[in-house]
């Protein structure tokens, strides 16, 4: 279901142009509003719909296989950390869903690795990655090795 843009809602701000992964939301030069220039390269990913401050972008299911008369609308709320969906069927049935999108305030939970203590020489020469061996073992042991697992790599046909 490719995107389309309501003429009366779009103010030409370009948020959809900035975010579209497929480079298909462009500003029409005459109307100064956004539109989908290449529907057959639209994945219906909703990135532009979620980014539109005017709720001006919607979807109309792919003409190849989707009859008219449906709607799937979304509200993504970064502050609340939620996403709300409303599905309307062609026959009028409605379904609503609400999900979290993050558990932490944006921009706060990810450390700057330029500012953490750097790796030791031992760590550089070994196989560990940043912050390991945290999370990778049940016990206090290090990284899994073939020796620890009692394994060898051999050529031949094994299943």
């Amino acid at each position, binding site marked *: 279901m490719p995107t389309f843009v309501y003429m009366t809602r779009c103010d030409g701000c370009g948020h959809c142009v900035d975010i579209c992964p497929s480079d*298909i939301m462009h500003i029409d030069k005459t109307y100064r509003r956004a539109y989908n220039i290449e529907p057959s390269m639209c994945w219906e990913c909703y990135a532009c719909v979620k980014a539109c401050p005017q709720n001006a972008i919607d979807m109309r299911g792919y003409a190849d296989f989707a009859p008219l008369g449906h709607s799937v609308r979304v509200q993504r709320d970064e502050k609340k950390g939620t996403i709300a969906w409303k599905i309307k*069927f062609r026959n009028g049935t409605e379904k609503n869903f609400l999900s979290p999108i993050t558990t932490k305030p944006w921009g706060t939970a990810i450390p700057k690795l330029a500012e953490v203590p*750097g790796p030791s020489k031992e760590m*550089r020469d070994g196989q560990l990655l940043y912050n390991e061996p945290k*999370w990778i073992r049940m016990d206090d042991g290090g990284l899994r090795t*073939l020796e620890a697992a009692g394994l060898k790599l051999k050529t031949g046909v*094994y299943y």
Partner: protein
Amino acid sequence: MAETIIEDGIDVLVVGAGLGGTGAAWEARFWGQNKKIVIAEKANIDRSGAVAQGLYAINCYMGTRWGENNPEDHVRYARIDLMGLVREDLLFDMARHVDSTVHQFEEWGLPIMKDPKTGRYLREGRWQIMIHGESYKPIVAEAAKKSADKVFNRICVTHLLMDDGRENRVAGAVGFNVRTGDYHVFKAKTVICGAGGASNIFKPRSVGEGAGRTWYAPWSSASAYGLMINAGAKMTQMENRIVLARFKDGYGPVGAYFLHLKTYTQNCLGEEYESKWFPALQQMVGKEYLDPEASHLTHRPIPTCLRNHCIISEVNAGRGPIHMVTMRAFQDPHLEEVGWENFLGMTVGQAVLWAATDVDPKNENPELTTSEPYVMGSHATCSGAWCSGPEDISPPEYFWGYNRMTTIEGLFGAGDAVGGTPHAFSSGSFTEGRLAAKAACKYIDDGKAEGIVVSDEQIERRKAEIFKPLEHYRIHRNAVVAGDVNPHYINPKQGLERLQKLMDEYCGGVTVSYMTNEKLLNIGLKKLSIMEEDLESLAAKDLHELLRAWELKHRHRAAECVTQHTLFRKETRWPGYYYRGDAMKVDDANWHVLTVSRRDPKSGEYTMEKAPCYHLVGDEVA
């Protein structure tokens, strides 16, 4: 005329910031705290790559700290699912690190569902955990942005730069800004290729607007392969394309349905159909690869391709469509919610399609189909570059100094770019990026990237090549009154349609039920070669079409490599992905090997070889 913008002195250049690239950029900062780390991304890093839309599951998590699985268990699973042929050193390495990646995601705010009884991550299947992943990509993008010195969005990288002072060493990358048309030159000591696999190289089932509803993202333009093959990197298992059994038309995912909702499939008569195809299939592949009784007893999976084979066979026998039996599971309101949110989290289009067609899976069982083929390296398939493994694991044939380094010095891979590592999915791809970043920093610290020379001639030659389609359009457009029919050029859409048609018909696409043979493949190669001549006459009327032109060139190169590999492997290793009609059996005596190709960048000739396939074997067997 386009400005030339040179970014110099880069230590680590990340090309393509999907899950592999963001992992690389993030981790590179730890190992290279004073290094210059730069990202070049075709779209906007906040919503780019295969996870742009979100994900509802992380399909690669061991749970080692809970005693759920060990890395070698995952290797054995990937091995049987791919009919024996994978890079087990790379897989073991990815699997032993992946849990640290996933727990890190949770610390960063990714909502991971918990099992209320155990407090552990909620399992969808043995390897899969369930998440609310609508913002998965913005979260990992934030991590990458915190580590990178600069992020260049909207740069379509077209070529890797090569060292003019030393053969076979990378020196950066070049491309153009899709918005401004500026020519961008990135001079770098190392490059980590995190670019994407290939959608849209085979003719899709939906050829109108619906062509956009690909299984893998339409912007996954085979650039991982186009860039690396053109630079002369060795590739592996490129014949191992994947076909997906998915909900019809929308290609909505089925993993949660099978594993969590316990739905199952049946033919149009309401019958179980899989088992009746097993005896004949066992004749083709051998009991080693298909042993339903053993699978039943030990939970050893039946390979994905073989399950596809049953669907294809049943449909061809006239008992389609295949239905997913959802009506029972969806009576439970919680499971119904999971079923819908699964789509809304990663394939909204399937929800739209069901709304448009009044399909409520509570009241009727939706149709399934098998998709057109895709070429990628992180799902149930493993096409990609031939890369070095880690020093403490890899045998000599798999090791040349730096983990995840391709056969080009200084060029590393992550995600779809790395061959032989299926079932990495999002978390494994991010982990591979981390591994590549550590190795790239080490490569620089070891002094391996000293004295790189990039001549002005190389920079200018690439520039002329990149912008040629715009120039070609300007010169020839007025030869005709109006319209897109012009004897001097084709446009990118016309070219893509030609590529898809020939790959479909000659290389085992959907309209021929995935069948090909030596004769067909040779014709296909001839047509691809002629098409390459026409790609010199590609015309782009604006920057958007220039982007599509370069995506097409990358797709074409990947398609050629896929065809070469398919021709080389004279057996049918993965029935249900494709069939070699002239060699319809698995042939372990001759083909229990990994296929490795190299295209000579000067002559365009391919060299094919067999590389040994090593397996993890317990002491009792060894």
